[in-house]
């Protein structure tokens, strides 16, 4: 079982105070905090092993190569993949852009359709808008039901004849867990490729890419206790053959003559320039840290906090919560509004209580439009959050009502 009180000791930032109040960090869906083990691994790299991997023959370069390629192997193992299928990028967003600009530009032509959903983060919308504009593609959006789930019938209609499905695994606003494996089966039968945005799910669900049945799976380190600046693109075996290089530079080539280039083999073919080495090592440390618990235990911890928060929020008639009510159908985050109070004002007053929540539209403008709300507030948890954090958060909402409603 996850022991959050013990886990808290591993996160230096959690002893911070905001004004005179202890920090209650509930903005984990935006970015998580980092344990000492991640900070130490990155520090150790710069102090003891810093060099450019896969470049020099000297000892430090060999060490850096071992650490960097070791991080690739750990990232692969974490999602049940082969190291060769892992490309490091700057972020989950960049991973999606890589697929759009490499596979998308080479394989999609005027009139081809891409299926997205109404609950996508901008990271899984804008790369496709850009491509659609350039190529004259059709974008279709699977609708959501009133319960915040994907409309399965609508999906079955829209996937017909489409070339690609790009879908989130866990909505960053509704918290909905999407049955990606079911969608992928149908999408493949319809002849479409499938990209899954795992930015939110990777830290909450146990990921086995083969079981998901997708062609690409993307995530980043910083929401799963790792550093910013490093993302992962997993590509199913065989799909690399459909993907020309995207960015050009060092490492991604085998040989350059003036006027002619021979490209490196994947995954290195997609890693142009010196990569975020320390960040890859930080990601590996985060994976090792997370792996001290099973993902089933992590999921149970977050589900219990979600259940507790939903129960407490439902006691207040002024609170509207978005997304599925069943905690088995949702991840560790809750977006909501308090009647008559704008999310920004709520977040400001919660901050006075030391509570950090997100407010605004969470990089999901189309979804907020669909929900018919200008903005929402969002609280989200991690391994180190405790029920007392939710109590402070709920008391903060009561205080906001008192201040603003008088």
């Amino acid at each position, binding site marked *: 079982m996850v022991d959050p009180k013990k886990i808290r000791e591993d996160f230096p930032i959690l002893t911070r105070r905001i004004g005179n109040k202890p920090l209650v960090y509930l903005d984990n869906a935006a970015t998580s905090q980092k344990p000492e083990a991640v900070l130490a691994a990155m520090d150790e790299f710069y102090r003891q092993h810093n060099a450019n991997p896969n470049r020099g023959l000297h000892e430090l370069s060999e060490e850096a190569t071992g650490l960097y390629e070791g991080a690739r192997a750990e990232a692969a193992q974490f999602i049940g993949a082969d190291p060769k299928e892992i490309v490091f990028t700057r972020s989950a967003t960049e991973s999606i852009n890589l697929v759009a600009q490499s596979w998308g530009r080479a394989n999609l032509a005027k009139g081809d359709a891409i299926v997205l959903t109404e609950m996508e983060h901008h990271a899984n919308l804008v790369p496709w808008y850009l491509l659609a504009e350039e190529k004259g593609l059709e974008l279709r959006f699977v609708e959501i039901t009133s319960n915040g789930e994907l409309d399965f019938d609508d999906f079955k209609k829209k996937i017909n004849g489409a070339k690609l499905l790009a879908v989130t695994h866990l909505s960053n606003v509704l918290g909905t867990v999407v049955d990606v494996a079911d969608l992928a089966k149908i999408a493949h039968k319809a002849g479409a490729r499938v990209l899954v945005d795992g930015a939110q799910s990777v830290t909450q669900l146990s990921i086995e890419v083969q079981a998901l049945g997708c062609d690409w799976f993307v995530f980043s380190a910083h929401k799963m206790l790792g550093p910013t600046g490093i993302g992962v693109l997993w590509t199913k075996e065989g799909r690399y053959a459909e993907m020309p290089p995207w960015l050009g530079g060092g490492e991604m080539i085998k040989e350059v003559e003036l006027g002619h280039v021979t490209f490196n083999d994947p995954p290195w073919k997609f890693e142009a320039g010196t990569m975020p080495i320390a960040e890859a090592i930080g990601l590996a440390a985060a994976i090792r840290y997370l792996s001290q618990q099973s993902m089933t235990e992590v999921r149970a911890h977050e589900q219990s906090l979600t259940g507790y928060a939903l129960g407490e929020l439902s006691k207040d008639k002024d609170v509207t919560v978005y997304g599925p009510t069943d905690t088995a159908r949702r991840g560790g985050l809750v977006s909501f509004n308090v009647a008559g109070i*704008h*999310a*920004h*004002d709520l977040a*400001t*007053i919660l901050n*006075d209580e030391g509570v950090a929540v997100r*407010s*605004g*539209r969470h990089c999901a*403008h189309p979804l*907020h439009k669909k929900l018919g*709300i*200008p*903005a929402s507030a969002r609280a989200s948890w991690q391994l180190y959050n405790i029920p007392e954090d939710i109590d402070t958060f709920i008391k903060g909402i009561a205080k906001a009502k008192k*201040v*603003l409603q*008088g």
Partner: protein
Amino acid sequence: MDIYREHILDHWKRPRNFGKLDDPNVVIDETNPLCGDALHFELKVEDGAIKAIAFQGEGCAISVAAASLLTEKAKRQSVKNVLSISNEMMLKELGISLSPTRLRCGLLAISGLRKGLKT
């Protein structure tokens, strides 16, 4: 740091000049796409002066209170005077200190009037 002072809450709950004009000749829409705040101003401008002004909008207490305060200040002023209102003056009018991210809420109204009146 208490930004929800009484006068701010008062202008938020009972915004002045809230509504529409019968015959506006300047209409301004200003939005903050990041947070979804949207202000809609209607003005009657004659001989370089603001004869009437009204606004509607959806937003946080700070952006609505700022719009209410600004319409009070702009009413029956020359366009030139309104255009001379600086960010500093607008914040002084609000009388509260705002964090960098919430500055946008406090300045949304004045930035809208500037854009709409400059042409």
